[in-house]
């Protein structure tokens, strides 16, 4: 089975006619697309998972924050697999999972990858592989169908991956209070819960900021001991003030 390749790439140099599909990738000059490569000063990479049910906005959020046009690849895995998607032995039942991903370069030194994965239980094997080495996850929730997110949230808890929850507001979404949502989703008190419009850059970055704030808050004390006192946070970003204030109560005001 041929795996589906890259999404089209309109902000490429205009010299190349026609739509770009995976099949045309072998045309000349794969090394010459502007912005294709990670900048040479980058010394390390980290990743974050973006999870949630079908249609919740994973691809949209990744596209909004990514510096490259989101790419797509199809991971293969064994149906009943133990989390290894490198098992290519003929005869085993394999299935593919489409994964979207995007990239953010931080200060020219570090690159952050966002991998979007479907939330259903049957995709858990694909997650395990990706979850290994992830900083944490964003769980997207659509209030029109809260139950559709239960699998994804349960998987994150099983994997022990720290996460923040982003509620994407769709037209006609029922309005819930934060308390109702936390109860319905059975969230721990310190898990960030933020309203989000995945189509909006500021809003999407704010969700990532809430996640990073949570990762810092929950880092073990010895990790904190290694650093000088935190610089004051910019006034525009109260959600992530590094103060030891009540965690989780900070990022939710927009709900």
């Amino acid at each position, binding site marked *: 089975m041929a795996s589906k390749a890259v999404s089209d790439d309109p902000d490429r140099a205009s010299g190349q006619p026609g739509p770009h599909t995976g099949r045309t990738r072998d045309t000349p000059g794969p090394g010459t697309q502007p912005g294709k490569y990670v900048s040479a000063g980058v010394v390390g990479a980290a990743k974050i998972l973006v999870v949630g049910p079908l249609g919740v906005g994973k691809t949209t959020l990744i596209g909004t924050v990514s510096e490259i046009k989101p790419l797509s*690849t199809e991971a293969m895995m064994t149906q009943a697999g133990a989390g290894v998607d490198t098992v290519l032995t003929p005869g085993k039942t394999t299935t593919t999972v489409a994964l979207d991903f995007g990239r953010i370069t931080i200060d020219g030194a570090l690159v952050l990858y966002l991998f979007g994965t479907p939330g259903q239980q049957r995709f858990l094997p694909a997650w395990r592989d990706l979850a290994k080495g992830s900083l944490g996850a964003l769980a997207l929730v659509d209030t029109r169908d809260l139950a559709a997110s239960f699998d994804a949230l349960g998987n994150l808890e099983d994997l022990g991956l720290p996460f923040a929850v982003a509620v994407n507001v769709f037209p006609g979404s029922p309005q819930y209070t934060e308390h109702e949502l936390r109860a319905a989703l059975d969230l721990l008190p310190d898990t960030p819960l933020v309203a989000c419009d995945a189509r909006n850059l500021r809003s999407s970055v704010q969700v990532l*900021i809430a996640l*990073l704030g949570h990762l810092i808050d929950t880092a073990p004390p010895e990790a904190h001991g290694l650093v000088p006192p935190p610089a004051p946070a910019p006034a525009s970003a109260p959600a992530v003030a590094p103060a030891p204030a009540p965690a989780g109560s900070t990022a939710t005001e927009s709900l």
Partner: protein
Amino acid sequence: MTDRPEDRTPSAVRPYVITRGRSDTGGEPLAWETLVMATDAAFPPSLQPEHHKILTHCQGLLSVAEVAAHLGQPPSVVQVLLSDLVAWGLIVIRPPIPPAEHTDVTMLRKVLHGLESRL
């Protein structure tokens, strides 16, 4: 002989054929976010087309996942091919931030501030 490989179109070649049936590289597979880049070493003439294609895409730093997407191959296949190229000295890697440093608050704060500067 019924085995007529010339009848196969490249897209019909199953991934385990491309990797000659190898499904792992002896060690941990390269993580999807591992950054890779071609070295200046000359390509040996005997290189398989799949290996060659990877090298043409790796003229700068790219993650394993990006190489897979640009190539239109599953990452599991690209992981194996890349490991070959690493072993042959044709690709160098920058490994991901090790999990032990994930809780390094200095690193997390850098990411946080980088994100804040995008607002």
